[in-house]
Protein backbone atom coordinates (compact mmCIF):
# COMPACT_ATOMS: atom_id res chain seq x y z
CA UNK A 1 0.00 0.00 0.00
CA UNK A 2 2.86 2.35 0.81
CA UNK A 3 3.93 2.07 -2.80
CA UNK A 4 0.57 3.24 -4.09
CA UNK A 5 0.20 6.10 -1.62
CA UNK A 6 3.61 7.49 -2.44
CA UNK A 7 3.19 6.90 -6.18
CA UNK A 8 -0.07 8.80 -6.02
CA UNK A 9 1.71 11.92 -4.74
CA UNK A 10 3.98 12.04 -7.80
CA UNK A 11 1.89 10.42 -10.52
CA UNK A 12 -1.37 12.31 -9.96
CA UNK A 13 -0.02 15.82 -10.61
CA UNK A 14 2.24 14.57 -13.40
CA UNK A 15 -0.64 12.89 -15.19
CA UNK A 16 -2.75 16.00 -14.64
CA UNK A 17 -0.03 18.10 -16.28
CA UNK A 18 0.02 15.89 -19.37
CA UNK A 19 -3.77 15.87 -19.59
CA UNK A 20 -3.79 19.67 -19.31
CA UNK A 21 -1.35 19.96 -22.20
CA UNK A 22 -3.45 17.64 -24.31
CA UNK A 23 -6.88 18.97 -23.53
CA UNK A 24 -6.93 22.29 -21.70
CA UNK A 25 -10.58 22.08 -20.63
CA UNK A 26 -11.81 22.17 -17.03
CA UNK A 27 -8.26 22.90 -15.87
CA UNK A 28 -9.22 23.88 -12.32
CA UNK A 29 -11.22 20.70 -11.81
CA UNK A 30 -8.39 18.50 -13.07
CA UNK A 31 -5.90 20.34 -10.89
CA UNK A 32 -8.17 20.10 -7.87
CA UNK A 33 -8.55 16.35 -8.36
CA UNK A 34 -4.78 15.99 -8.63
CA UNK A 35 -4.15 18.05 -5.49
CA UNK A 36 -6.78 16.03 -3.63
CA UNK A 37 -5.03 12.84 -4.72
CA UNK A 38 -1.72 14.20 -3.42
CA UNK A 39 -3.42 14.94 -0.13
CA UNK A 40 -4.97 11.46 -0.10
CA UNK A 41 -1.58 9.93 -0.79
CA UNK A 42 0.02 11.92 2.02
CA UNK A 43 -2.75 10.95 4.47
CA UNK A 44 -2.44 7.32 3.39
CA UNK A 45 1.30 7.45 4.01
CA UNK A 46 0.66 9.02 7.42
CA UNK A 47 -1.59 6.14 8.42
CA UNK A 48 0.87 3.54 7.14
CA UNK A 49 3.62 5.34 9.01
CA UNK A 50 1.64 5.21 12.24
CA UNK A 51 0.98 1.52 11.75
CA UNK A 52 4.38 0.26 10.69
CA UNK A 53 7.01 2.96 10.95
CA UNK A 54 9.45 4.44 8.43
CA UNK A 55 10.53 2.50 5.35
CA UNK A 56 12.20 2.71 1.96
CA UNK A 57 10.59 2.12 -1.43
CA UNK A 58 12.92 0.86 -4.10
CA UNK A 59 11.93 2.20 -7.51
CA UNK A 60 12.58 -0.38 -10.22
CA UNK A 61 13.18 -2.99 -7.55
CA UNK A 62 16.96 -2.58 -7.68
CA UNK A 63 17.63 -0.86 -4.42
CA UNK A 64 20.59 1.36 -3.67
CA UNK A 65 23.25 1.86 -4.90
CA UNK A 66 22.01 0.74 -8.31
CA UNK A 67 18.51 2.19 -8.24
CA UNK A 68 16.74 5.12 -6.65
CA UNK A 69 14.87 4.72 -3.38
CA UNK A 70 12.12 6.79 -1.83
CA UNK A 71 12.28 7.36 1.87
CA UNK A 72 9.07 7.45 3.87
CA UNK A 73 9.45 8.92 7.33
CA UNK A 74 7.79 11.54 9.48
CA UNK A 75 9.66 14.42 7.90
CA UNK A 76 8.78 13.39 4.35
CA UNK A 77 5.13 12.73 5.09
CA UNK A 78 4.66 15.97 7.03
CA UNK A 79 6.01 17.97 4.11
CA UNK A 80 3.90 16.05 1.60
CA UNK A 81 0.89 16.88 3.74
CA UNK A 82 1.97 20.50 3.67
CA UNK A 83 2.09 20.48 -0.14
CA UNK A 84 -1.37 18.93 -0.38
CA UNK A 85 -2.93 21.17 2.24
CA UNK A 86 -1.51 24.40 0.84
CA UNK A 87 -2.23 23.27 -2.71
CA UNK A 88 -5.95 23.01 -2.16
CA UNK A 89 -6.86 26.64 -1.34
CA UNK A 90 -4.28 27.90 -3.83
CA UNK A 91 -5.95 25.92 -6.61
CA UNK A 92 -9.40 27.22 -5.72
CA UNK A 93 -8.00 30.73 -5.52
CA UNK A 94 -6.24 30.47 -8.87
CA UNK A 95 -9.46 29.47 -10.57
CA UNK A 96 -11.07 32.74 -9.50
CA UNK A 97 -7.89 34.74 -10.06
CA UNK A 98 -7.10 33.69 -13.60
CA UNK A 99 -10.63 33.02 -14.81
CA UNK A 100 -10.41 32.69 -18.57
CA UNK A 101 -7.35 34.90 -18.96
CA UNK A 102 -4.73 33.53 -21.39
CA UNK A 103 -2.13 33.48 -18.61
CA UNK A 104 -4.32 31.02 -16.75
CA UNK A 105 -4.15 28.47 -19.53
CA UNK A 106 -0.45 27.99 -18.86
CA UNK A 107 -0.72 28.31 -15.11
CA UNK A 108 -2.37 24.92 -14.66
CA UNK A 109 0.13 22.55 -16.30
CA UNK A 110 3.03 24.52 -14.80
CA UNK A 111 1.52 24.35 -11.31
CA UNK A 112 0.96 20.61 -11.69
CA UNK A 113 4.57 20.06 -12.78
CA UNK A 114 5.75 22.15 -9.85
CA UNK A 115 3.72 20.00 -7.48
CA UNK A 116 5.15 16.84 -9.08
CA UNK A 117 8.67 18.15 -8.59
CA UNK A 118 7.98 19.08 -4.97
CA UNK A 119 6.48 15.70 -4.05
CA UNK A 120 9.27 13.81 -5.83
CA UNK A 121 11.80 15.98 -4.00
CA UNK A 122 10.29 15.30 -0.57
CA UNK A 123 10.18 11.55 -1.27
CA UNK A 124 13.64 11.20 -2.76
CA UNK A 125 16.74 10.02 -0.96
CA UNK A 126 19.22 10.24 -3.83
CA UNK A 127 21.66 13.08 -4.53
CA UNK A 128 21.27 13.08 -8.31
CA UNK A 129 17.53 12.54 -8.32
CA UNK A 130 17.36 15.64 -6.16
CA UNK A 131 19.22 17.57 -8.83
CA UNK A 132 16.58 16.64 -11.41
CA UNK A 133 13.71 17.49 -9.08
CA UNK A 134 15.39 20.78 -8.18
CA UNK A 135 15.63 21.74 -11.84
CA UNK A 136 12.02 20.78 -12.46
CA UNK A 137 11.05 22.80 -9.40
CA UNK A 138 12.97 25.97 -10.21
CA UNK A 139 12.18 26.01 -13.91
CA UNK A 140 8.46 25.66 -13.24
CA UNK A 141 8.68 28.30 -10.52
CA UNK A 142 10.41 30.76 -12.86
CA UNK A 143 7.91 30.06 -15.63
CA UNK A 144 5.07 30.78 -13.22
CA UNK A 145 6.62 34.13 -12.30
CA UNK A 146 6.59 35.21 -15.96
CA UNK A 147 2.84 34.64 -16.28
CA UNK A 148 1.84 38.21 -15.50
CA UNK A 149 3.79 39.26 -18.60
CA UNK A 150 4.81 42.56 -17.03
CA UNK A 151 8.29 43.94 -17.48
CA UNK A 152 9.08 43.86 -13.77
CA UNK A 153 8.00 40.24 -13.53
CA UNK A 154 10.09 39.21 -16.53
CA UNK A 155 13.16 40.93 -15.12
CA UNK A 156 12.63 39.27 -11.77
CA UNK A 157 12.12 35.94 -13.49
CA UNK A 158 15.35 36.27 -15.40
CA UNK A 159 17.27 36.96 -12.21
CA UNK A 160 15.50 34.09 -10.50
CA UNK A 161 16.34 31.77 -13.40
CA UNK A 162 20.03 32.62 -13.51
CA UNK A 163 20.36 32.41 -9.73
CA UNK A 164 18.49 29.13 -9.66
CA UNK A 165 20.59 27.54 -12.39
CA UNK A 166 23.74 28.80 -10.71
CA UNK A 167 22.63 27.18 -7.46
CA UNK A 168 21.82 23.91 -9.23
CA UNK A 169 25.24 23.76 -10.84
CA UNK A 170 27.03 24.40 -7.53
CA UNK A 171 24.95 21.59 -6.05
CA UNK A 172 25.72 19.28 -8.98
CA UNK A 173 29.45 19.95 -8.67
CA UNK A 174 29.21 18.85 -5.04
CA UNK A 175 27.36 15.70 -6.11
CA UNK A 176 30.08 14.99 -8.67
CA UNK A 177 32.78 15.23 -5.99
CA UNK A 178 30.84 12.93 -3.67
CA UNK A 179 30.30 10.40 -6.43
CA UNK A 180 33.94 10.55 -7.35
CA UNK A 181 34.95 9.85 -3.79
CA UNK A 182 32.42 7.17 -2.84
CA UNK A 183 30.76 5.97 -6.04
CA UNK A 184 27.34 6.11 -4.39
CA UNK A 185 24.42 8.54 -4.59
CA UNK A 186 22.02 7.12 -2.03
CA UNK A 187 21.95 9.15 1.16
CA UNK A 188 21.37 6.23 3.49
CA UNK A 189 24.45 4.46 2.11
CA UNK A 190 26.51 7.65 2.17
CA UNK A 191 25.69 8.13 5.84
CA UNK A 192 27.82 5.07 6.60
CA UNK A 193 30.59 6.05 4.21
CA UNK A 194 31.44 9.73 4.51
CA UNK A 195 34.65 10.65 6.26
CA UNK A 196 35.82 14.12 7.25
CA UNK A 197 38.15 14.48 4.26
CA UNK A 198 38.96 17.47 2.08
CA UNK A 199 36.76 16.36 -0.82
CA UNK A 200 33.76 15.83 1.45
CA UNK A 201 34.10 19.29 2.96
CA UNK A 202 34.47 20.95 -0.44
CA UNK A 203 31.51 18.96 -1.80
CA UNK A 204 29.36 19.82 1.19
CA UNK A 205 30.33 23.47 0.90
CA UNK A 206 29.32 23.55 -2.75
CA UNK A 207 26.05 21.73 -2.19
CA UNK A 208 25.17 23.86 0.81
CA UNK A 209 25.99 27.08 -1.06
CA UNK A 210 23.82 26.06 -4.00
CA UNK A 211 20.93 25.09 -1.76
CA UNK A 212 21.23 28.22 0.38
CA UNK A 213 21.03 30.37 -2.75
CA UNK A 214 17.92 28.49 -3.78
CA UNK A 215 16.31 28.75 -0.36
CA UNK A 216 17.21 32.44 -0.22
CA UNK A 217 19.02 32.56 3.09
CA UNK A 218 20.27 36.07 3.86
CA UNK A 219 22.45 37.48 2.24
CA UNK A 220 21.69 35.21 -0.72
CA UNK A 221 18.05 36.32 -0.75
CA UNK A 222 18.64 39.12 -3.29
CA UNK A 223 16.52 37.46 -5.97
CA UNK A 224 13.54 36.64 -3.78
CA UNK A 225 11.62 39.86 -3.05
CA UNK A 226 11.32 40.92 -6.68
CA UNK A 227 10.33 37.44 -7.87
CA UNK A 228 7.83 36.78 -5.09
CA UNK A 229 6.56 40.35 -5.15
CA UNK A 230 5.94 40.63 -8.89
CA UNK A 231 4.46 37.19 -9.59
CA UNK A 232 0.69 36.70 -9.86
CA UNK A 233 -0.75 36.27 -6.35
CA UNK A 234 -1.39 32.49 -6.40
CA UNK A 235 2.14 32.03 -7.71
CA UNK A 236 3.60 34.21 -4.95
CA UNK A 237 1.79 32.03 -2.46
CA UNK A 238 3.18 28.84 -4.01
CA UNK A 239 6.71 30.25 -4.15
CA UNK A 240 6.81 31.55 -0.59
CA UNK A 241 4.89 28.69 0.97
CA UNK A 242 6.38 25.72 -0.84
CA UNK A 243 9.19 26.27 -3.32
CA UNK A 244 11.85 27.74 -1.02
CA UNK A 245 11.21 24.87 1.40
CA UNK A 246 12.20 22.33 -1.27
CA UNK A 247 15.86 23.33 -1.35
CA UNK A 248 15.90 23.73 2.41
CA UNK A 249 14.56 20.21 2.86
CA UNK A 250 17.52 18.79 0.92
CA UNK A 251 19.88 20.86 3.03
CA UNK A 252 18.28 19.41 6.13
CA UNK A 253 18.69 15.85 4.86
CA UNK A 254 22.33 16.50 4.04
CA UNK A 255 22.84 18.01 7.49
CA UNK A 256 21.64 14.81 9.12
CA UNK A 257 23.09 12.18 6.82
CA UNK A 258 26.05 13.56 4.95
CA UNK A 259 27.81 15.88 7.37
CA UNK A 260 30.50 13.95 9.27
CA UNK A 261 30.42 14.18 13.05
CA UNK A 262 33.68 16.11 13.04
CA UNK A 263 31.92 19.26 11.84
CA UNK A 264 33.44 22.37 13.41
CA UNK A 265 30.96 24.29 15.57
CA UNK A 266 31.74 27.45 13.68
CA UNK A 267 29.73 26.26 10.68
CA UNK A 268 26.46 25.98 12.53
CA UNK A 269 27.20 29.26 14.30
CA UNK A 270 27.71 30.98 10.96
CA UNK A 271 24.47 29.53 9.61
CA UNK A 272 22.67 30.64 12.74
CA UNK A 273 24.24 34.07 12.42
CA UNK A 274 23.00 34.36 8.85
CA UNK A 275 19.58 33.33 10.09
CA UNK A 276 19.68 36.08 12.72
CA UNK A 277 20.75 38.53 10.03
CA UNK A 278 17.84 37.43 7.85
CA UNK A 279 15.34 37.91 10.66
CA UNK A 280 16.51 41.42 11.50
CA UNK A 281 17.23 42.65 7.97
CA UNK A 282 14.17 41.07 6.36
CA UNK A 283 11.86 42.43 9.05
CA UNK A 284 13.30 45.92 8.74
CA UNK A 285 12.89 45.84 4.95
CA UNK A 286 9.34 44.58 5.35
CA UNK A 287 8.66 47.45 7.72
CA UNK A 288 10.04 49.95 5.21
CA UNK A 289 8.29 48.46 2.16
CA UNK A 290 5.85 50.73 0.35
CA UNK A 291 4.05 47.97 -1.54
CA UNK A 292 1.97 45.33 0.17
CA UNK A 293 3.31 42.35 -1.77
CA UNK A 294 6.90 43.48 -1.25
CA UNK A 295 6.16 43.67 2.48
CA UNK A 296 4.96 40.07 2.45
CA UNK A 297 7.93 38.99 0.31
CA UNK A 298 10.45 40.56 2.72
CA UNK A 299 8.59 38.90 5.54
CA UNK A 300 9.45 35.61 3.83
CA UNK A 301 13.13 36.59 3.81
CA UNK A 302 12.86 37.20 7.55
CA UNK A 303 10.96 34.02 8.32
CA UNK A 304 13.43 31.89 6.36
CA UNK A 305 15.98 33.10 8.91
CA UNK A 306 14.23 31.07 11.60
CA UNK A 307 14.92 27.95 9.52
CA UNK A 308 18.64 28.65 9.74
CA UNK A 309 18.48 29.16 13.51
CA UNK A 310 17.82 25.45 13.66
CA UNK A 311 21.41 24.54 12.80
CA UNK A 312 23.13 25.83 15.96
CA UNK A 313 20.26 24.44 18.06
CA UNK A 314 20.40 20.99 16.45
CA UNK A 315 23.72 20.12 18.08
CA UNK A 316 22.49 20.48 21.64
CA UNK A 317 21.81 16.82 22.36
CA UNK A 318 18.26 16.11 23.40
CA UNK A 319 17.26 19.72 22.68
CA UNK A 320 18.24 19.08 19.07
CA UNK A 321 15.18 16.85 18.66
CA UNK A 322 12.99 19.57 20.13
CA UNK A 323 14.53 22.05 17.73
CA UNK A 324 13.82 19.76 14.77
CA UNK A 325 10.21 19.36 15.80
CA UNK A 326 9.91 23.13 16.09
CA UNK A 327 11.60 23.62 12.75
CA UNK A 328 9.34 21.29 10.79
CA UNK A 329 6.30 22.73 12.50
CA UNK A 330 7.58 26.16 11.62
CA UNK A 331 7.95 25.21 7.95
CA UNK A 332 4.38 23.90 7.89
CA UNK A 333 2.83 26.81 9.76
CA UNK A 334 4.74 29.38 7.74
CA UNK A 335 3.56 27.75 4.51
CA UNK A 336 -0.08 28.11 5.53
CA UNK A 337 0.22 31.58 7.04
CA UNK A 338 2.38 33.10 4.33
CA UNK A 339 0.31 31.49 1.60
CA UNK A 340 -2.82 32.99 3.11
CA UNK A 341 -1.19 36.42 3.37
CA UNK A 342 -0.14 36.40 -0.27
CA UNK A 343 -3.58 35.28 -1.39
CA UNK A 344 -5.22 37.99 0.67
CA UNK A 345 -2.74 40.58 -0.60
CA UNK A 346 -3.57 39.47 -4.12
CA UNK A 347 -7.24 40.14 -3.50
CA UNK A 348 -6.50 43.64 -2.24
CA UNK A 349 -4.23 44.31 -5.21
CA UNK A 350 -6.87 43.00 -7.59
CA UNK A 351 -9.58 45.19 -6.17
CA UNK A 352 -7.48 48.32 -5.93
CA UNK A 353 -5.61 47.89 -9.20
CA UNK A 354 -2.33 48.43 -7.32
CA UNK A 355 -0.74 47.48 -4.01
CA UNK A 356 0.67 50.77 -2.74
CA UNK A 357 0.20 50.60 1.02
CA UNK A 358 -0.41 54.31 1.30
CA UNK A 359 -3.69 54.19 -0.57
CA UNK A 360 -5.04 50.74 0.15
CA UNK A 361 -7.21 51.67 3.13
CA UNK A 362 -10.55 52.03 1.31
CA UNK A 363 -10.07 48.69 -0.42
CA UNK A 364 -9.11 47.05 2.83
CA UNK A 365 -12.47 48.02 4.28
CA UNK A 366 -14.27 46.77 1.19
CA UNK A 367 -12.77 43.30 1.49
CA UNK A 368 -13.23 42.31 5.13
CA UNK A 369 -12.83 38.57 4.50
CA UNK A 370 -9.44 39.01 2.89
CA UNK A 371 -8.31 41.40 5.63
CA UNK A 372 -9.42 38.89 8.22
CA UNK A 373 -7.45 36.15 6.45
CA UNK A 374 -4.40 38.42 6.38
CA UNK A 375 -4.82 39.12 10.07
CA UNK A 376 -5.01 35.44 11.01
CA UNK A 377 -2.00 34.67 8.85
CA UNK A 378 -0.24 37.58 10.52
CA UNK A 379 -1.01 36.22 13.99
CA UNK A 380 0.74 32.99 13.03
CA UNK A 381 3.72 34.81 11.53
CA UNK A 382 4.07 36.91 14.70
CA UNK A 383 3.95 33.67 16.69
CA UNK A 384 0.98 34.60 18.86
CA UNK A 385 -1.26 31.92 20.37
CA UNK A 386 -3.34 30.06 19.37
CA UNK A 387 -1.69 29.70 15.97
CA UNK A 388 0.60 27.13 14.37
CA UNK A 389 3.31 29.77 14.34
CA UNK A 390 3.01 30.04 18.10
CA UNK A 391 3.58 26.30 18.64
CA UNK A 392 6.53 26.36 16.24
CA UNK A 393 8.24 29.38 17.77
CA UNK A 394 7.48 28.23 21.29
CA UNK A 395 9.15 24.89 20.57
CA UNK A 396 12.16 26.53 18.98
CA UNK A 397 12.37 28.98 21.88
CA UNK A 398 12.25 26.08 24.34
CA UNK A 399 15.09 24.37 22.53
CA UNK A 400 17.11 27.56 22.60
CA UNK A 401 16.49 28.18 26.31
CA UNK A 402 17.08 24.55 27.19
CA UNK A 403 20.40 24.46 25.41
CA UNK A 404 21.44 27.84 26.80
CA UNK A 405 21.53 29.59 23.43
CA UNK A 406 20.52 32.96 24.83
CA UNK A 407 21.61 34.87 21.74
CA UNK A 408 19.09 32.92 19.67
CA UNK A 409 16.40 33.57 22.27
CA UNK A 410 16.99 37.29 21.96
CA UNK A 411 16.96 37.11 18.16
CA UNK A 412 13.67 35.24 18.15
CA UNK A 413 12.01 37.64 20.54
CA UNK A 414 13.22 40.69 18.64
CA UNK A 415 12.15 39.07 15.38
CA UNK A 416 8.67 38.47 16.79
CA UNK A 417 8.36 42.13 17.81
CA UNK A 418 9.56 43.35 14.44
CA UNK A 419 7.11 41.10 12.60
CA UNK A 420 4.33 42.50 14.76
CA UNK A 421 5.42 45.97 13.70
CA UNK A 422 5.18 45.35 9.98
CA UNK A 423 2.03 43.27 10.15
CA UNK A 424 0.25 45.98 12.12
CA UNK A 425 1.15 48.43 9.38
CA UNK A 426 -1.17 46.39 7.16
CA UNK A 427 -3.84 45.71 9.75
CA UNK A 428 -3.98 49.43 10.49
CA UNK A 429 -5.48 49.88 7.04
CA UNK A 430 -8.75 48.45 8.37
CA UNK A 431 -8.91 50.95 11.17
CA UNK A 432 -8.08 54.03 9.15
CA UNK A 433 -10.47 56.97 9.37
CA UNK A 434 -13.54 56.18 7.28
CA UNK A 435 -13.65 59.24 5.10
CA UNK A 436 -12.86 58.12 1.63
CA UNK A 437 -15.43 56.02 -0.14
CA UNK A 438 -14.05 52.75 -1.47
CA UNK A 439 -13.19 53.13 -5.12
CA UNK A 440 -12.61 49.71 -6.62
CA UNK A 441 -10.71 50.26 -9.83
CA UNK A 442 -9.62 46.74 -10.53
CA UNK A 443 -11.77 43.82 -11.62
CA UNK A 444 -14.18 42.29 -9.15
CA UNK A 445 -12.59 39.84 -6.74
CA UNK A 446 -14.13 36.38 -6.91
CA UNK A 447 -15.83 35.30 -3.69
CA UNK A 448 -14.04 31.95 -3.96
CA UNK A 449 -10.71 33.77 -3.92
CA UNK A 450 -11.63 35.58 -0.72
CA UNK A 451 -12.74 32.41 1.02
CA UNK A 452 -9.72 30.46 -0.25
CA UNK A 453 -7.40 32.88 1.52
CA UNK A 454 -9.44 32.56 4.69
CA UNK A 455 -9.42 28.76 4.42
CA UNK A 456 -5.64 28.68 4.27
CA UNK A 457 -5.37 31.12 7.15
CA UNK A 458 -7.71 28.99 9.24
CA UNK A 459 -5.47 25.98 8.66
CA UNK A 460 -2.59 27.99 10.12
CA UNK A 461 -4.81 28.61 13.14
CA UNK A 462 -5.93 25.00 13.33
CA UNK A 463 -2.30 23.89 13.44
CA UNK A 464 -2.09 25.75 16.74
CA UNK A 465 -5.33 24.45 18.20
CA UNK A 466 -4.72 20.83 17.34
CA UNK A 467 -0.98 20.29 17.33
CA UNK A 468 -0.58 16.83 18.84
CA UNK A 469 -1.42 14.60 15.85
CA UNK A 470 0.99 16.56 13.67
CA UNK A 471 3.75 16.43 16.27
CA UNK A 472 3.24 12.67 16.67
CA UNK A 473 3.47 12.16 12.94
CA UNK A 474 6.63 14.08 12.35
CA UNK A 475 8.40 12.38 15.24
CA UNK A 476 8.20 8.99 13.50
CA UNK A 477 11.65 8.10 12.28
CA UNK A 478 13.07 11.48 13.25
CA UNK A 479 16.47 11.94 11.64
CA UNK A 480 19.38 12.05 14.05
CA UNK A 481 22.47 14.20 14.00
CA UNK A 482 25.53 11.94 13.95
CA UNK A 483 27.30 12.16 17.30
Amino acid at each position, binding site marked *: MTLWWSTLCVAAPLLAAVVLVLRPKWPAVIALVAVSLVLTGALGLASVLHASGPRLIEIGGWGAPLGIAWRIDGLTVTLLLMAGIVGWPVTIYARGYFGDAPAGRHFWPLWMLLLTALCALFLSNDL*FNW*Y*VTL*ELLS*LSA*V*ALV*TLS*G*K*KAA*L*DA*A*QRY*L*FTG*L*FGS*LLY*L*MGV*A*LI*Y*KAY*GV*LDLTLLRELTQPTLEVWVALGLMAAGLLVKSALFPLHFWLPAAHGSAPAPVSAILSALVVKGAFYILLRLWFDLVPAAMPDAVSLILGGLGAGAIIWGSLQAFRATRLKMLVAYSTVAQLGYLALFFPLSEAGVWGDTALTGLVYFIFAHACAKGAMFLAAGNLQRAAGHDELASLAPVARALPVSMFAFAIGGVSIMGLPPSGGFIAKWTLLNAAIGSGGWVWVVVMVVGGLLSAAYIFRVLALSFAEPGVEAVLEGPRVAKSSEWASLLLASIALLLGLNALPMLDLLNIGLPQVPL
Partner: protein
Amino acid sequence: MTVTDFYALVGVALFVMGLCALILRSRDLQRILGLNIMGTGVFMVLVTSAAGNGEVTDPVPHAMVLTGIVVAVSATAFALALSLARERRR
Protein backbone atom coordinates in the same frame (compact mmCIF):
# COMPACT_ATOMS: atom_id res chain seq x y z
CA MET B 1 48.97 13.01 -13.00
CA THR B 2 46.92 10.89 -15.38
CA VAL B 3 45.04 12.00 -18.49
CA THR B 4 41.81 11.63 -16.54
CA ASP B 5 43.05 13.97 -13.85
CA PHE B 6 44.06 16.44 -16.51
CA TYR B 7 40.55 16.47 -17.96
CA ALA B 8 39.12 16.83 -14.47
CA LEU B 9 41.25 19.94 -13.97
CA VAL B 10 40.12 21.30 -17.33
CA GLY B 11 36.57 20.74 -16.11
CA VAL B 12 37.24 22.71 -12.94
CA ALA B 13 38.78 25.52 -14.96
CA LEU B 14 35.74 25.64 -17.26
CA PHE B 15 33.50 25.75 -14.18
CA VAL B 16 35.41 28.73 -12.82
CA MET B 17 35.41 30.55 -16.16
CA GLY B 18 31.70 30.04 -16.64
CA LEU B 19 31.02 31.17 -13.09
CA CYS B 20 32.96 34.40 -13.58
CA ALA B 21 31.14 35.11 -16.85
CA LEU B 22 27.78 34.45 -15.25
CA ILE B 23 28.44 36.97 -12.50
CA LEU B 24 30.42 39.59 -14.38
CA ARG B 25 28.92 39.72 -17.87
CA SER B 26 26.00 42.03 -18.45
CA ARG B 27 24.37 40.69 -21.60
CA ASP B 28 21.91 37.81 -21.23
CA LEU B 29 23.44 35.81 -24.04
CA GLN B 30 26.92 35.92 -22.55
CA ARG B 31 25.60 34.84 -19.18
CA ILE B 32 23.76 31.95 -20.83
CA LEU B 33 27.01 30.91 -22.49
CA GLY B 34 28.63 31.16 -19.05
CA LEU B 35 26.03 28.84 -17.55
CA ASN B 36 26.52 26.33 -20.35
CA ILE B 37 30.28 26.33 -19.99
CA MET B 38 29.97 26.06 -16.22
CA GLY B 39 27.72 23.06 -16.75
CA THR B 40 30.17 21.47 -19.16
CA GLY B 41 32.82 21.82 -16.47
CA VAL B 42 30.66 19.92 -13.98
CA PHE B 43 29.90 17.25 -16.57
CA MET B 44 33.59 16.82 -17.23
CA VAL B 45 34.30 16.23 -13.55
CA LEU B 46 31.46 13.70 -13.51
CA VAL B 47 32.69 11.83 -16.57
CA THR B 48 36.22 11.66 -15.23
CA SER B 49 34.87 10.12 -12.03
CA ALA B 50 33.68 7.23 -14.21
CA ALA B 51 37.04 6.61 -15.79
CA GLY B 52 38.65 6.55 -12.37
CA ASN B 53 39.49 2.91 -11.85
CA GLY B 54 40.08 -0.16 -13.94
CA GLU B 55 39.36 -1.08 -17.51
CA VAL B 56 35.55 -0.87 -17.48
CA THR B 57 34.04 2.58 -17.13
CA ASP B 58 31.14 3.20 -14.80
CA PRO B 59 28.02 4.04 -16.87
CA VAL B 60 26.19 5.85 -14.06
CA PRO B 61 28.05 9.17 -14.46
CA HIS B 62 27.55 8.93 -18.20
CA ALA B 63 23.82 8.59 -17.69
CA MET B 64 23.89 11.51 -15.25
CA VAL B 65 25.70 13.68 -17.80
CA LEU B 66 23.22 12.72 -20.53
CA THR B 67 20.42 13.81 -18.24
CA GLY B 68 22.36 16.94 -17.41
CA ILE B 69 22.87 17.83 -21.07
CA VAL B 70 19.16 17.59 -21.75
CA VAL B 71 18.34 19.68 -18.69
CA ALA B 72 20.95 22.22 -19.82
CA VAL B 73 19.49 22.59 -23.29
CA SER B 74 16.00 22.97 -21.80
CA ALA B 75 17.17 25.68 -19.45
CA THR B 76 19.04 27.38 -22.28
CA ALA B 77 15.99 27.38 -24.54
CA PHE B 78 13.89 28.89 -21.78
CA ALA B 79 16.50 31.47 -20.83
CA LEU B 80 16.85 32.57 -24.46
CA ALA B 81 13.09 32.87 -24.89
CA LEU B 82 12.94 34.86 -21.67
CA SER B 83 15.57 37.29 -22.86
CA LEU B 84 13.66 37.74 -26.12
CA ALA B 85 10.49 38.46 -24.16
CA ARG B 86 12.34 40.98 -21.99
CA GLU B 87 13.75 42.71 -25.02
CA ARG B 88 10.23 42.98 -26.49
CA ARG B 89 8.82 44.70 -23.41
CA ARG B 90 11.70 47.18 -23.29
